[in-house]
């Protein structure tokens, strides 16, 4: 009875194929590697969108499959961004500092270099000391490890406390919102050690690769994001396709029943919550170097709510639904709020999409909930079934 992942879930193969095709076409059209038809700024938007699709898969896993409506996964996304951002900013500042000090008669001592880096990075929040949390910032390997460890441990401890106390449903959602809000408010403080509301910036410049143009760097990040999305999709599909997937769906549908069957529900929730937090963190670590800047506003509670809206619009409980939702809504969002959408003059009033996009999104959400409760992915299913029936 053993069948491969692709036999059980043919949509996985379709998805990976489409993603590969899309990635190749865009790379060929990019400025960095190919014909230069797709601009570098658009490559960045596409790369960021792929990262958002990846966190949407994490959200679908934790909410659509396991029934935990977490409204805090953007906190893990943001933390992943901060962790890689620390290395990017530290190393680049170090390069600049060494270059500027090299003009002196005596070679600069390590203390002088460290002090200059501290002044450069933390002058803006009135400090010169490098905070302890930056202890590993000099090592790419350590910071990459922290991308996974910090959000992973936060999710593990938070989840352990929350699930152990049998906090479920809307109460758990509120708790996750409280967690994001607390984290965001903490990061807003100047003495949090992460530059307060200034956040980390200049992240698009990769240390050691200053000679390489942004068009090439962005194309590499686009490829890396596509690879991460593909791998994330495979991992998620593998997790949900077997018996583990059946158990977490059972937890979603009737938690008490599966508990009386002998399954330790809390342990399953903790595994899924932590795994998805790590996926979210990896997505964030790829997103922010493309965005160039990260600040505490990114972790605001509303971001995590948007994430749930994407997954609901795309159709939860099916992985490609999450991807469709995240891609559609975030691309539309950047089109409307980027000032590219033409305003509509009505004479007495002008509809300016930067403001009205929110209304449109809200309406879209209401319409999807009313008329396509299974989301855009659900409409997909209906088409496929019609095909099979005829």
């Amino acid at each position, binding site marked *: *009875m*053993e069948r491969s992942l692709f036999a059980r879930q043919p949509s996985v193969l379709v998805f990976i194929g489409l993603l590969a095709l899309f990635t190749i076409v865009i790379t060929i059209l990019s400025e960095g590697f190919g014909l230069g038809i797709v601009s570098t700024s658009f490559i960045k938007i596409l790369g960021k969108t792929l990262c958002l699709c990846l966190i949407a898969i994490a959200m679908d896993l934790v909410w659509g499959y396991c029934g935990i409506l977490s409204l805090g996964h953007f906190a893990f996304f943001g933390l992943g961004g901060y962790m890689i951002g620390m290395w990017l900013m530290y190393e680049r500042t170090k390069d600049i500092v060494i270059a500027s000090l090299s003009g002196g008669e005596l070679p600069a001592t390590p203390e002088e270099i460290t002090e200059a880096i501290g002044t450069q990075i933390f002058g803006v929040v009135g400090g010169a000391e490098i905070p302890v949390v930056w202890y590993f910032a000099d090592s790419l390997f350590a910071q990459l490890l922290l991308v996974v460890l910090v959000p992973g441990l936060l999710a593990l401890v938070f989840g352990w406390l929350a699930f152990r106390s049998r906090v479920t449903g809307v109460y758990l959602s509120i708790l996750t919102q409280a967690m994001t809000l607390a984290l965001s408010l903490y990061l807003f403080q100047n003495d949090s050690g992460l530059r307060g509301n200034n956040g980390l910036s200049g992240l698009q410049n990769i240390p050691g690769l200053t000679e390489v143009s942004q068009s090439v760097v962005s194309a590499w990040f686009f490829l890396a994001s596509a690879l991460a999305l593909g791998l994330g999709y495979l991992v998620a599909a593998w*997790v949900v396709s*077997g*018996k*583990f997937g*059946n*158990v977490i*769906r*059972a937890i979603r*549908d*009737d938690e*008490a*029943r*599966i*508990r*009386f*069957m*002998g*399954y*330790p*529900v809390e*342990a*399953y929730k903790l*595994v899924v919550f932590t795994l998805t937090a790590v996926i979210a963190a990896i997505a964030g670590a790829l997103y922010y170097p493309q965005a160039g800047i990260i600040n505490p506003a990114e972790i605001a509670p509303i971001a995590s709510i948007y994430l749930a809206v994407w997954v609901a619009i795309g159709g939860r409980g099916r992985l490609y639904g999450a991807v469709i939702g995240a891609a559609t809504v975030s691309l539309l969002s950047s089109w409307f709020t980027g000032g590219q959408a033409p305003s509509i003059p009505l004479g007495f009033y002008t509809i300016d999409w930067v403001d009205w996009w929110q209304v449109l999104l809200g309406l879209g959400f209401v319409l999807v909930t009313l008329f396509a409760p299974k989301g855009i992915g659900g409409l997909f299913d209906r088409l496929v079934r019609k095909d099979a029936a005829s």
Partner: protein
Amino acid sequence: MSALLEVTSISVSFDGFKAINNLSFEIGGQELRAIIGPNGAGKTTFMDIVTGKTRPDEGRVRFGEPQLDLLRLSESQIARAGVGRKFQRPTVFEAQSVRDNLTMALSNDRLPFAVLRYKPSKEDDGRVSALAEEIGLSGELDRTAGELSHGQKQWLEIGILLAQEPKLLLVDEPAAGMTLGEREHTTDLLRRAAETRAVVVVEHDMEFVRRLDCKVTVLHEGSVLAEGTLDHVTANSDVIDVYLGR
């Protein structure tokens, strides 16, 4: 022979209402027992206590050999120790196939990482087929459980319980909403199950209890009112008072 389940003078009250009052109960390893009693007699609360959903204010609950103190275990640990429970309302996982429902219930390792690596074996497939045969759902293995009839869902749930290979089976009103034919099938299932394990059936329906033909425990206001054969307890004047009103 010592009893499989020993419940000794348990009491529990909710907001001052004594749902269970100094109740003691014993059942042997291969025994079928019916628990009857009017509404509010504490039948469901009794099951909640044995399965770990409710903690009693006082008393002891001992189970198995060597004896386990069930009051110290969580619901899932109690289930893994060998106590299976069927709820009043049939609760199967409607979005999943009959096969998936049964496979999840098989008595394999239930910890997350073991389940993540789980691969269906020939042996497990065989067990699922045998179970399906026993509960009369062989033809429905690949159907979604939500499409089954009410009676079929009840059987599937009994199948889920048998798959767990419990030492003790607690069954809450299995015959509710069943047709006559379905009731007979259910009676057979339960009596066969009791040949190798202890089965406790909570039931309102006297006719169904008569069909089970087993020892009966009558509960009233949270304690045991009478115990014995059905004819014995129905001849008891206290039982007549409780059931027919004073």
